[in-house]
């Protein structure tokens, strides 16, 4: 590689050159897009290496457990930069989401040192943390020796930093002063509406602005569109059914999963307002949801929208983003809409899912693992992923504000950035942090299935659910 070309990209990373100037000069030098990619990655790596001893763990190999996801793809695409930067090697196993979390539990519960770091959701750390399976990352973040001075932890969105930190006390607020940082946010999704703009325009419809409009709009779409159903939401017998659109809307109506009094938790799903909301949600699915809703996961909700089999989804914004690209039938036809279901609410309250990186307590090379985690959550890698790959939504304010990324998204995904900006201020985890998250939320989903299939009336179902939840909390010493 010629020095002239290297110097050009280094000047850009040191902000001595604008992007426009860089593009002009690369064109003059006859550098192709692929070569420009690798030169930029190399220049970013060199820039990172300037202020910190990245070679401290040279020669070590760390092993990762990854979920099959565009975030993992972005990291793998940029992994050579990390290897060059540190002299370390990285190996990884990638599993599809259906089996991924079971694989994590199997590895961690057996105290295996097979993996040093892994992808996790924030909710899962409420199990892994108290079990002693993962490391508190606060000491690492705060260590001047172990952490790159340019890491800029405070650049990570505050809501996400708080949502991934918990002190382990059931019912305690996330992100409290005594909280442990169980994982590092990597990419996140908020729950909003994605709708088929092309079909909506054809039918003269506008995206809904509240729950009543959502129900009516979904029913009207189903009636008039001649084939596709109205609205896609998840419905499988899993906690994953509760956390996307459902909890976002539930929260918007001021409802909570639990109340906490003197450190004791009590179920709060059977209030009058909650029952009214559940009744609406159930009716919406019965009238305008997918026929086999009770088997619907992220994949089915997304692919139906991408294939033109549904009019809209109330789910992860990034799911709509992925469906608007690639070789999906409806790529380019989708619109994005920030959604506040409660007419009295001032703004959306999207519950978030945060794909994060956690460090196994059983790994034998924690410093090397931390070096990887810093790099993977750095501004530089975040910028690479956002600009060049599908690493959305960025967890860092600096990346989210990056002009190039925003221009790219605005061009190919009109309305997405507006949705992001409107939803982000109210976006956080709205679940109450407690160790029975998985069982109690799965039972909630199971009850929802029974209501939708008319096995049990809404009021009775929620009273039963609350009684069962309270009993389980009591048995576990939490209620």
């Amino acid at each position: 590689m010629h020095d002239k070309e290297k110097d050009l990209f280094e000047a850009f990373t040191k902000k001595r050159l604008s992007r426009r100037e860089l593009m002009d000069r690369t064109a003059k030098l006859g550098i192709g897009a692929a070569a420009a990619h690798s030169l930029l990655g190399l220049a970013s790596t060199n820039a990172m290496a300037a202020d910190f001893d990245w070679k401290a763990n040279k020669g070590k190999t760390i092993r990762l457990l990854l979920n099959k996801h565009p975030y993992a793809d972005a990291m793998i695409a940029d992994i050579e930069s990390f290897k060059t930067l540190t002299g370390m090697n990285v190996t990884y196993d990638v599993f599809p989401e259906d089996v991924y979390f079971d694989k994590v539990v199997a590895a961690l519960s057996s105290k295996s040192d097979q993996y040093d770091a892994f992808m996790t959701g924030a909710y899962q750390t409420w199990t892994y943390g108290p079990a002693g399976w993962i490391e508190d990352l606060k000491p690492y973040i705060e260590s001047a020796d172990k952490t790159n001075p340019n890491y800029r932890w405070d650049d990570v969105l505050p809501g996400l930093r708080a949502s991934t930190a918990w002190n382990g006390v059931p019912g305690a607020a996330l992100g409290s002063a005594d909280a442990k940082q169980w994982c590092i946010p990597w990419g996140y999704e908020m729950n909003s509406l994605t709708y088929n703009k092309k079909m909506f325009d054809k039918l003269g419809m506008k995206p809904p602005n509240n729950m009543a409009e959502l129900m009516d709009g979904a029913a009207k779409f189903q009636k008039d569109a001649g084939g596709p159903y109205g609205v896609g939401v998840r419905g499988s017998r899993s906690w994953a059914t509760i956390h996307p659109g459902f909890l976002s809307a539930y929260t918007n109506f001021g409802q909570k999963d639990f109340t906490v009094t003197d450190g004791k938790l009590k179920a709060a799903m059977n209030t009058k307002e909650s029952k009214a909301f559940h009744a609406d949600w159930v009716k919406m699915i019965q009238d305008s949801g997918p026929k086999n809703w009770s088997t619907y996961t992220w994949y089915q909700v997304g692919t139906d929208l991408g294939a033109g089999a549904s009019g809209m989804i109330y789910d992860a914004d990034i799911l709509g983003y992925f469906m608007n690209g690639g070789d999906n039938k409806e790529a380019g036809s989708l619109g994005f809409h920030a959604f506040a279901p409660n007419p009295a609410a001032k703004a959306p309250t999207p519950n978030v899912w945060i794909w994060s990186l956690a460090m196994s307590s059983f790994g034998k090379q924690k410093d090397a693992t931390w070096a990887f985690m810093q790099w993977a959550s750095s501004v530089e890698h975040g910028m690479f992923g956002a600009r060049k790959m599908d690493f959305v939504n960025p967890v860092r304010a600096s990346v989210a504000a990056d002009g190039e990324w925003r221009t790219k998204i605005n061009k190919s995904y009109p309305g997405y950035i507006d949705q992001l900006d409107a939803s982000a201020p109210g976006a956080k985890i709205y679940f109450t942090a407690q160790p029975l998250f998985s069982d109690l939320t799965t039972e909630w989903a199971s009850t929802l299935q029974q209501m939708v299939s008319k096995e049990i009336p809404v009021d009775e179902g929620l009273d039963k659910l609350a009684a069962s939840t309270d009993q389980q909390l009591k048995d576990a010493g939490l209620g």
Partner: protein
Amino acid sequence: MSTLAETAPPRRKGSSPAFRRALPYLLSMPALLVCVAVLVPFVTAVYYSMLRYRLNLPSMKGFIWFGNYIGFLGDSEFWNTVYVSLAYTVLTVVVELLLGLGIALLLRKQSRINNFISIMLLLPLMTAPAIAALMWKLMTNPNFGVLSYLVSLVGLSDFRWASSPTTALFTVVLVDTWVYTPFIMILLLAGLRSLPPQPFEAAALDGVPTSFVFFRITLPMLTPYIITAVLFRLLDSIQQFDIIYAMTQGGPGNRLMVFQVESYLQFFQYTNVGKSAAMLMILWAITYFLSNVFIKNWLKLRERARGHA
């Protein structure tokens, strides 16, 4: 004595008295190792089933004897699991036995075409149950599934297969039947083809009706094979996991919450080791009891066949 001494095998060179004394123990060592390998996990599971033990609540860990089991007695969800597991087992075994026996009778005669058909019918058995479940999940998809389309032709346009509580059990039994009927068929076919021809020839000479031959000659002679096939399927069915989990995860609601799915969720998703182990111990007890009943009956039949009262 002298005779004995003369016929005694010559002592092998180099085998010391100590070695000869240790030889029986050394020879039984593999069997002992197998016993240990079986017993250690079993005893561990028994121990865990007597603990209050959630991996994410380590402070609560404690020995509670039969607390988990007693807890199940008053738990309606547990009784639902017992009911669903038994219903699933009975339905699958009965349907598969009737179909397997019927197909085996049809293919009884040795011929090229029958051999070819029996090989073709074995294909589902070579499919991993989880893959079969996913395949059926696609075929029963209301939007694009070929089976949904076929049933719509006979007026069932809103048939929801595994998504509906009223048809979920039927759907998974259907998948199980598709996968495992060939297993029963091939066992019974082997049994039928190995039956002695003389009784059938005699019956044919006497002009005995076909139904009489089947109920009075074929079926009694085939019973040991039937018991073997049913026992294998019973043990498999009551421990069913892949098909149900891949298709519905035990839903809708708790409609298909069988033992294996429940204990899997208890461990892998809820990290409740104690409850998961207790659930599996109960499953083991049920399986052990059913196996015993079948094996005792099978032994009685064998004795009767040998002419013992």
